[in-house]
């Protein structure tokens, strides 16, 4: 018997999900699957589209590959739009003229962004946000723009605003309705969201109806509003809602809803029996679902129905029954969630509201008349309860105790009321994107999964929107615990503690040596993981000379000889050049040393000078000269403060608002020598032009007309992260106080080798929590943190100075303990007037030359 032909129009998220379901089902061999895409690529993760701006490539976003489709036998055509359906002959025809017959046709054409009919909307930098091509256009426009406007303050609009903000544009959101996210949030929630977003520097304009877009005076365009006001901008992003892509269905007489959308029944069939519609183009019960999870549910139903009709000839087992539209997101770092009947429209429902103006949290619960069932919720500023609340509602569970307890913050000593995952039924849907139940996750754990990575690949849970991640992890942990598996977070085999626990132990027990900690809390002899970690902890709290006999064996390779080891075993020398400011005399000293010792000399990326290729026995001599000339160690080897990068600032620069160099020198001077879980870098810029790139540093400081703005937890390196704005318009003293607190809190609570960026991302409560600890002193430890820092600052010593003053310590700086000779394995070649280590090939030639002599 010949195979049945299933043609899928559109290869978006839902079309692909359908294909994947059918192609991996037990009946896959009965079908030929043919799909057409108007886009130049196969399906990709539209939900994560914004990640494209933070570095994800089109490949990262791809949901499948051409070779996957080929091996599944799926026939695909890209860049070709289906333009005709012939329901009598059962064929479709594409723009390029290709014709395919079908037994079943599936329309998965998605939706398109709605652009209001405003005169002037079709100009070059007026864009939408839906495809990878759109994002490319946005990136290109952002590069030539200073200001950007997003039209539409809904879910997608705010995501788009986030992208513009991240691209460094002055960002505005223009909304027609009186509040943001009007569909999902009630009035108070919308207000608070607005306040928060504005405090992040995104300007919100509500109740604005755009009349026209004309040429601007200051910027490229001017948007004139109906109320007579206007706004100037260089680019415009329309995000005013989506419209179902029902063009094909309209032309070929399928039933269409009043406001668009292809009408479907519970089996996703359109008005023509053999044509189905799924995803955002489909209208079920007069509703369009603008989320991916309902689309996936439709895909599943349709695949089941097609198999039952064409293969098994049994009645279909599942029908589409509508879907939950609850959402949780983190927009511009603000947590927002909306569940069920967020507006309290159910007859007889009651509301509970918790609102905290200080920490900016708003929560509303909508409960049934009898107070037993949860109907909906709005959470702004703190969406931790999302998972719990959603499960209560979806599983129609009784609210445990007083509903108010579900949204009240935990009082001292009292656990926040939550819902133990153990109380959920096995059927509870945990991941709605992939319809993964609690039972599925438990099964995966029983089958051997024990990390989130395992669970993701086994069940797909939490690989979609990510909203379920916390809950999936809870279910996994609970199941692991039930199986008696312990989740091991020990730092190494010698200590059954995490770095944070070790830091607490050292602080509370007032330990001063590794030996004390090992005897009290460890076993064995330590290793290259726990020794440097404890070495660093001891130094952070006690700040003793790191080459003291009892500490020396703990130091990492570089610290132990106060230099960075190079590939051939020689060292580099990096004196501190605070803020990159250096006198000509000192430059001459560096030049002389470089010349006299034939050291490879380079300006570093940290605004200082690195001298490479010094042998062990040369280090003390060289450092003696440096110390005599007034240099100090630059700690280029340490997990400690590296550099404070500065711009020239108000002393010379015509734009400078404050003296960024003096501030940078002061900060570098204050924190130099501070040992921490990983290295720390600062930047100080004299104005918002940001020549010091402060927003890519752990601590960034930028001058404004009214004082310093403080940014925290930026990172360059392997995974760059923009720093978050932490506090604004600070005076010198407050700035230093906040930095003291942030850094000491980091030192106490970060994991080993965790930069501030990763630390913040893992910190429960995130930036808001850090602000509460540092600015509001929520934990009442601010004094203690400051005292800790004062102690370190007061006990600073230049490690190189101390070392060259101790004949005992100097002894270690020789290649042989029993001879004066130098390492005979070092070979160099000269390049551009300086020496560098010989490569392997060069080595062979050089050695031959030498021995031939």
């Amino acid at each position, binding site marked *: 018997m010949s195979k049945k032909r299933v043609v899928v129009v559109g290869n978006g998220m839902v079309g692909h999900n359908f294909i994947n379901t059918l192609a991996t089902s037990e009946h896959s061999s009965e079908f030929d699957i043919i799909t057409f895409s108007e886009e130049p690529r196969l399906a990709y993760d539209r939900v994560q589209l914004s990640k494209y701006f933070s570095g994800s490539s089109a490949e990262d976003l791809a949901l499948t590959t051409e070779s996957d489709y080929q091996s599944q036998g799926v026939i695909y055509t890209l860049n070709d739009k289906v333009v005709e359906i012939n329901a009598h002959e059962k064929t479709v025809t594409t723009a390029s003229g290709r014709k395919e017959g079908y037994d079943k046709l599936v329309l998965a054409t998605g939706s398109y962004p709605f652009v209001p009919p405003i005169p002037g909307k079709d100009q070059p930098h007026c864009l939408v946000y839906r495809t990878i091509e759109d994002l490319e256009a946005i990136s290109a426009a952002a590069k030539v723009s200073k200001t950007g406007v997003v039209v539409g303050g809904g879910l997608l609009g705010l995501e788009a605003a986030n992208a513009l903000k991240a691209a460094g544009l002055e960002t505005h959101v223009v909304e027609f309705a009186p509040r943001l996210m009007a569909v999902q949030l009630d009035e108070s929630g919308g207000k608070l969201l607005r306040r928060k977003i504005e405090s992040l520097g995104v300007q919100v304009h509500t109740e604005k109806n755009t009349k026209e877009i004309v040429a601007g005076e200051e910027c490229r365009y001017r948007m004139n509003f109906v109320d007579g006001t206007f706004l100037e901008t260089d680019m415009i992003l329309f995000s005013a809602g989506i419209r179902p892509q029902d063009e094909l269905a309209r032309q070929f007489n399928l039933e269409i809803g009043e406001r668009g959308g292809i009408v479907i029944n519970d089996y996703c069939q359109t008005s023509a029996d053999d044509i189905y519609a799924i995803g955002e183009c489909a209208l079920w019960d007069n509703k369009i679902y603008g989320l991916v999870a309902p689309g996936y549910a439709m895909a599943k139903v349709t695949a089941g129905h097609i198999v039952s009709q064409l293969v098994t000839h049994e009645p279909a087992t599942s029908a589409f029954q509508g879907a939950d539209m609850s959402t949780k997101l983190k927009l511009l770092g603000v947590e927002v969630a909306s569940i069920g009947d967020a507006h309290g429209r159910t007859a007889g429902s009651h509301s509970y509201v918790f609102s905290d103006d200080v920490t900016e949290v708003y929560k509303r619960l909508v409960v049934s008349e009898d107070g037993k069932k949860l109907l909906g919720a709005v959470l702004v500023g703190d969406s931790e309860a999302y998972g719990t609340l959603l499960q209560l509602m979806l599983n129609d569970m009784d609210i445990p105790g007083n509903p108010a307890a579900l949204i009240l913050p935990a009082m001292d000593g009292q656990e926040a009321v939550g819902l133990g995952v153990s109380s959920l039924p096995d059927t509870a849907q945990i991941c709605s994107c992939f319809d993964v139940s609690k039972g599925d996750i438990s099964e995966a754990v029983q089958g051997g999964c024990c990390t989130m990575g395992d669970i993701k690949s086994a069940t797909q849970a939490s690989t979609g929107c990510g909203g379920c991640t916390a809950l999936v992890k809870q279910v996994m942990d609970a199941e692991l615990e039930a199986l008696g598996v312990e989740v091991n977070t020990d730092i190494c085999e010698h200590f059954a503690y995490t770095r944070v626990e070790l830091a607490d132990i050292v602080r509370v027990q007032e330990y001063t040596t590794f030996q004390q900690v090992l005897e009290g809390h460890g076993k064995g*002899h330590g*290793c*290259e993981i726990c020794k440097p970690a404890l070495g660093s902890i001891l130094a952070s709290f006690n700040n003793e000379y790191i080459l003291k*006999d009892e500490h*020396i*064996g703990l130091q990492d390779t570089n610290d132990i000889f106060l230099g960075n080891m190079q590939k051939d*075993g020689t060292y580099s020398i990096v004196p501190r050049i605070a803020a990159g400011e250096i006198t000509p005399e000192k430059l001459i000293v560096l030049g002389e040393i470089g010349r006299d010792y034939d050291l490879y000399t380079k300006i570093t990326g940290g605004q200082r000078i690195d001298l490479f290729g010094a042998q062990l026995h040369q280090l003390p001599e060289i450092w003696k000269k440096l110390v005599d000339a007034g240099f100090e160690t630059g700690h280029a080897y340490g997990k400690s403060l590296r550099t404070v990068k500065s711009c020239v600032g108000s002393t010379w620069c015509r734009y400078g608002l404050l003296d960024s160099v003096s501030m940078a020198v002061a900060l570098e001077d204050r924190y130099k020598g501070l040992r921490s879980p990983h290295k720390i870098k600062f930047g100080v810029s004299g104005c918002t032009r940001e020549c010091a790139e402060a927003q890519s540093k752990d601590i960034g400081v930028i001058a404004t007309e009214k004082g310093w703005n403080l940014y925290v937890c930026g990172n360059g390196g392997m995974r760059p992260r923009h720093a978050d704005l932490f506090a604004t318009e600070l005076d010198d003293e407050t700035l230093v106080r906040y930095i003291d607190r942030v850094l000491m809190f980091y030192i106490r609570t970060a994991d080993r080798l965790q930069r501030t960026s990763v630390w913040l991302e893992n910190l429960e409560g995130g930036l808001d929590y850090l602000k509460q600890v540092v600015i509001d002193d929520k934990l009442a430890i601010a004094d203690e943190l400051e005292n800790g820092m004062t102690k370190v600052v007061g006990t600073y010593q230049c490690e190189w100075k101390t070392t060259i003053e101790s004949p005992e310590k100097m*002894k270690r700086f020789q290649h*042989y*303990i029993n001879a004066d000779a130098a390492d005979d394995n070092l070979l160099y070649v000269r390049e551009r007037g300086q020496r560098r280590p010989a490569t392997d090939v060069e080595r062979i030639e050089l050695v031959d030359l030498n021995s031939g002599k």
Partner: protein
Amino acid sequence: MTQWTQICALTDIAPDTGVCALHQGEQVALFRLGQTEQVFAIGNYDPIGRANVLSRGIVGSIGERYVVASPLYKQHFDLATGECLEDDAVTVKAYPVRIAAGQVELAQGAALSV
């Protein structure tokens, strides 16, 4: 009878660190465990990082074995046998070593074969 060569005083090696000795034309890494008199000797050349650096690694233990972690790329070498824990095919020499009257001494003649 084995002849021993004096290399340095035990106290020349800071606890839990290493030093490098020149012995019969070879570079030998000597390690001292904590404050004890226990001393190990293996080749100083790191065959993986290809530099004379093992004496400058961190000393510790893995299970029951005493090891040094190479300062370049952190592979572990067994201090008693010279074996690399990460790669069976890699070994460095191990040398007989003793303490006599507070002095660290290496044996003259061939290295320990393992």
